[in-house]
């Protein structure tokens, strides 16, 4: 497990998600990367029942890169988040909790092709919220390195190499306090959560806007 950063790629007005993925695939192939299968990250969100007091939100992730693990991130509503990494059977346990935590029925899936270029792994995925494509996410992993602070500049250069100027020169917010920590698979998931939250908010506003106008 190496350092991974996740980057949004802006949607263009007149292009579908599949077209953008194809466009990026061409660029990545030009760099010399080879496609090695596909990837899938999914996220299910649960909310606590009102009887428990303050509303808590539970996000449960699966990542095809770590197929035997389940990642769960709990937001207790007051800004504190607690992550847990568990075995695949955790899903079964969640069913037992269904009386306390109910699914919000908003499944997020990010899937797309996975490429390898020497020690780099590149994933280009379309983010689906309830089966609607909401955006494009690019994940780049540099496997030999385990500390974000050591290779951020390099990863940035790498991403800018094929994504262009949409890659910011400032490290992602999530890493600001974690520059010198050893990178964990959970860090990837946390970044996905950040991005999903942004998309959800955006669509939420959009939906509100739509309902208001109609």
């Amino acid at each position, binding site marked *: 497990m190496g350092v991974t950063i996740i980057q949004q790629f802006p949607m263009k007005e007149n292009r579908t998600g599949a077209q953008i993925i194809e466009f990026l695939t061409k660029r990545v192939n030009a760099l010399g990367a*080879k*496609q*090695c*299968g*596909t*990837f*899938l990250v*999914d996220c*299910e969100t649960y909310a*606590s*029942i009102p*009887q*428990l*007091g303050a509303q*808590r939100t*539970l996000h449960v992730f*699966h990542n*095809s890169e770590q*197929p035997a693990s*389940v990642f*769960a991130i*709990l937001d*207790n509503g007051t800004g*504190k988040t*607690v*992550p*847990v*990494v*568990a*075995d*695949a*059977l*955790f*899903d*079964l*346990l969640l069913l*037992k*909790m269904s*009386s*306390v*935590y109910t699914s919000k029925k908003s499944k997020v*899936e990010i*899937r797309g092709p996975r490429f390898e270029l020497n020690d780099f792994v590149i994933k280009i995925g379309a983010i689906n919220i309830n089966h609607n494509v909401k955006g494009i996410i690019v994940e780049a992993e540099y496997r030999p390195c385990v500390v974000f602070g050591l290779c951020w500049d390099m990863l940035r250069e790498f991403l800018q190499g094929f994504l262009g100027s949409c890659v910011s020169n400032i490290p992602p917010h999530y890493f600001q306090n974690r520059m010198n920590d050893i990178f964990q698979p959970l860090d990837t998931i946390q970044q996905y959560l950040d991005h999903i939250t942004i998309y959800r908010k955006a669509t939420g506003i959009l939906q509100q806007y739509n309902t208001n106008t109609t």
Partner: protein
Amino acid sequence: MEAIKEAPIPAMDSLTSAMKNNIVPNQEYLLQGSVLDSAVEVLLHRLRGLCDNVDSGPETFHDHEMCFSIRSVTPQPLTLRVRRAIDYLDMPYQLRYIGQPELGDKSRPTILRNSIDVATTPTIVDFLTEMGFRMDFEYILRGYMFRKGRMKITVSKIFKMMVVGKPAPESVDPISQSYLVELSVLAPSNQDAIAEDMRVFAEQLKPLVHLEKVDYKRLTQPPL
């Protein structure tokens, strides 16, 4: 173009198919018994002879178990147990759901109960607390573990913790003069054949230890 790997299947789907094929170990066959401190050496000796891990000697363990529960609309609380090894700090924590023990009729040799075992990171304690769970009780287990085929035999002493959350050796107190002996197998559904094996094994430990189906319902009634 090289062969492309199969597209990954969503985790939930693969879990459901695993459940359908009965390969998820979600049931525990259990027999329980106890042995007095004075006789535990004899028992350990006998187990060493009967079990598989003879050459390496009995495996010791020293665990801390916490029992969490949460109440929902139903009157029944949901109970989860977290167990961690005190002697090996880098081991994952174990989160466990245990269902109602089913005694069954006389013909069934063991207790059968649902059980889901999940290994997790140490953050699980904080996680459960924030989820709304609260700790009911906790205790310390120290003892020996044996293996015989798929069967697991534990001989453990249960200690009460005098100071909450601090499993230091000086602040624990044994709750009885006996060791708890448990014989269990974690298996997928419908493998009742193993229960028969357990009965045979339990037979071999008599009269030192009587491994039996303990009726949980009877235990709750105050002694007459």
